[in-house]
């Protein structure tokens, strides 16, 4: 059976080392994506990411880390286990092309639904990462249910 997967990419105007650190270090990642993690992304580590804004908690099995080049992990954010591969490619000294792949799901209605949701999620992640490392802002702020309820306060 055919399968469906997710691919997103964007260029970030910062060196690869800075982009890499912003992903593997939870103190940095909590500035734009997670609320907290049980540890850094290290090869072979099993960690947990907490998203307090949406009340979610996800296990992350880190499979491969190549410094400044590759981050690969398994998780079940889509409802079934899938593999995420992030590649960092230098573009000159001060820019990084980030590509994110999550694979895969069967090419059926449920699989396509999962791929669509993960496409939106990873695109948003990449935008938040870019805003964080380029401008030091947290683009994820204000997304939680509580924020909606206190809107205008």
């Amino acid at each position, binding site marked *: 059976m055919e399968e469906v997967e997710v691919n997103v990419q964007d260029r970030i105007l910062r060196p690869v080392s800075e982009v890499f650190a912003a992903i593997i270090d939870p103190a940095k990642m909590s500035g734009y994506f997670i609320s907290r993690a049980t540890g850094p992304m290290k090869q072979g580590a099993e960690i947990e990411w907490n998203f307090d804004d949406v009340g979610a908690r996800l296990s992350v099995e880190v499979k491969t880390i190549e410094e400044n080049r590759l981050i690969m992990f398994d998780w079940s954010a889509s409802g079934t286990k899938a593999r995420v591969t992030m590649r960092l490619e230098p573009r000159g000294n001060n820019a990084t092309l980030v590509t994110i792949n999550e694979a895969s799901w069967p090419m059926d209605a449920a699989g396509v639904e999962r791929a*669509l949701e993960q*496409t939106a999620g990873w695109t948003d992640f990449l935008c938040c990462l870019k805003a964080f490392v380029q401008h030091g802002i947290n683009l994820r702020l204000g997304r939680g249910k509580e924020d909606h309820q206190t809107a205008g306060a």
Partner: protein
Amino acid sequence: MPNTLDAPVATAQMLIRKPVAQVFEALVNPAITSHFWFSKSSGPLEVGKQVRWDWEMYGHHTTVDVKAIEDNKRILIEWNGPEKPSFVEWTFEPKGKDQTFVTVRNWGFTGEANEVVSEAINSTGGFSFVLAALKAYLEHGIELNLVLDHAPDSLVQGWASRHAVA
């Protein structure tokens, strides 16, 4: 709109911490939209009008037919015709006085099943970029250049040097 394999719907959503009138204006007024999405437009979005949007950095353009506009509530367009027409609808939902929940849906893709799925996935990514760029621009006054940086290898020759980005 059922999300089936034959007729997938691309969806993107975002909470923007600005009043609904300001968020709506950012999408009908091309002088604002061109800060975070297309680079040029032939005119504002008005019901019954046809406009052209250009992404000059990629040498790409599309024709937009404005089907419906409800002030501060909804925008419905048909675009990418006549070869690949599809519908795009934005809805704007106020969350208190100062925040707006924006939803974009794009549907009506044609072709083989694999092709429509691929279009829906690409569109979902595309509109997710647009909403994040809109949020960064309205909330922080920042141009993230998400569109420009999406496919740096496909930029029109000379664009990067004309618009230094590094």
